């Protein structure tokens, strides 16, 4: 509203829509923020946002699971494992947390313990997509058929978080160098969530491995969404030098 809008000069300018105001900064808000940061590849900010969500509501499972997942993404596997154990104190035998703990252990090359956790997650009463993704992660060094089987089950039972499950599935498949299958999932993710810089980056790596020229476009897209996305910047400079991305 400008200074003279209330003066009566016979102004017939149509009034705009009323300002909806700021969104309430509750746990939901911070969880959404955290997911946005995560998909943009900003894991540190996502971790902080998940912590702020927990500040609002300490019984929020997404907050705890998100923190563990971000610690995994940041490469702090031991801390992720400790934090998952802490979260499991609050949510005993929750399959998501067990699955995330299994992922942290598997990434830390503690496969025996990871397998135990994964077994528990699968055996839980209401198993989740994350349990199957963790299974895929644990069996990553086995055959590709086992991994793709686990991923199919994860996607089959995914409910609301399908793009995120697909993104994670794509990341697992990319790591076992199943680039064709990975790009299929990642393509679906970038179509559903175009602002997911992480998905664009992963897609670019797959495309580059498959020798597709779209790799550069995907990387540019990732950097347009998040110009500070360090792995994407590094990948872009490597691509310009003519090397492999991964």
């Amino acid at each position, binding site marked *: 509203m400008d200074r003279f809008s209330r003066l009566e000069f016979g102004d017939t300018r149509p009034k705009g829509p009323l300002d909806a105001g700021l969104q309430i900064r509750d746990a939901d808000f911070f969880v959404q923020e955290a997911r946005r940061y995560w998909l943009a590849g900003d894991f540190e900010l996502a971790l902080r946002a998940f*912590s702020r969500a927990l500040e609002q509501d300490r019984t929020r499972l997404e*907050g705890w699971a998100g923190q563990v997942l971000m610690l995994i993404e940041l490469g*702090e596997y031991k801390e992720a494992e400790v934090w998952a154990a802490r979260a499991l104190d609050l949510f005993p035998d929750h399959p998501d947390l067990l699955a995330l703990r299994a992922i942290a252990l598997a990434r830390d090359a503690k496969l025996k313990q990871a397998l135990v956790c994964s077994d528990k997650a699968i055996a839980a009463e209401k198993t989740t997509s994350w349990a199957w993704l963790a299974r895929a992660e644990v069996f990553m060094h086995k055959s590709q058929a086992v991994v793709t089987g686990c991923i199919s089950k994860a996607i089959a039972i995914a409910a609301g978080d399908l793009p995120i499950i697909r993104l994670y599935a794509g990341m697992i498949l990319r790591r076992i160098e199943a680039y064709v299958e990975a790009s299929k999932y990642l393509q679906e993710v970038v179509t559903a969530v175009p602002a997911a810089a992480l998905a664009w980056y992963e897609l670019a790596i797959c495309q580059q491995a498959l020798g597709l020229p779209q790799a550069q476009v995907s990387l540019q897209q990732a950097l347009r969404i998040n110009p500070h996305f360090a792995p994407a910047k590094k990948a872009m400079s490597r691509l310009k030098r003519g090397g492999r991305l991964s």
Partner: protein
Amino acid sequence: MPDQVRCFRCGTVLIADGGVAIIPPRMARWKRPFRRASRVLRSSFGQLDPKVEQAVSSAGGIFVDIALGLIPGLPFVITGRFGKLWLVLVWLVLAVVGVWSYGHPIGMWCIGLAAAVHAWLIITSRIWPLLKTYVDRLAVVLVTAGALTGMYLCLPRLFIPGFALIRSPIEVPVLQVHEGDVLIATRLAMPPVRGMLVTVRASRFAVPYGHGLARSGPGGIALGQVIGLPGEVVEVRADGFYINGSQLDSKLYPVPTWLAGRQAMVRLDQDEYFVAMQYRIAGQLPNDTRLPGNACRVKAEQIVGQVALRWWPLARRGRIRLEQWTGSLG
């Protein structure tokens, strides 16, 4: 927990107040490369883990662990517990510094600490949980560290024939050897030549002057300079040594302090050498002309090694080459 309300069926927290910590632990940046290395090792050797671990436990657990632990960190590598491998790095640094500066107090401290770290590595692999009290633990660490220090000191002797570390009691300026220097001796590689610094097995000495004349050098080994060769006549006079009537340069063949000013003539047999060794004089020695012969005449088989290296001080560290015996001393 008083600040939490939980589901009575599944135990899930329903209400939690400020008592629940929500800030996750974070990894220090400097740990990242160590964690990565540990992960790589775990993923490389982790596959062997179950079989080897089973073999280790079936073969008598702790004792096998101790035996394996003689190679620092090996039990951890075999069983895939790489978290403690940073201690192996610490051990390695201490051992290298200890060996490098052996003969200096810092070196001795480092070797002691390396032994303590090694002991810790052995004990923590399996024995630690079995020890319930601090006294037990301390005792076991100290005993193991002591045993390992002994092992470290014996180890070079296993690999280098005739190895001995000797603090020099004699001065030979032309070879840059001064009193107090730490020298390394190895097995005799050639028949002794004049001027050579040799180690002599001193336990077979017949020193007839009781406590007045005590040999220098550790254990049964003494250090000395070869002066007279088999069959020669060695004379000790006020101005130095004479061989078959010809005077030796006193700078190249210094007379040990306890012999200075004495007069003696020693006729060596075909299997005897005259080795000028330093002795500690504890009392008044008799003015006996047989004294130098008794104290310095040694049989060929008693000469067990030759000095190969000046080890400490660092500034003079280097090999004592053969040319120095034969070339400069003649």
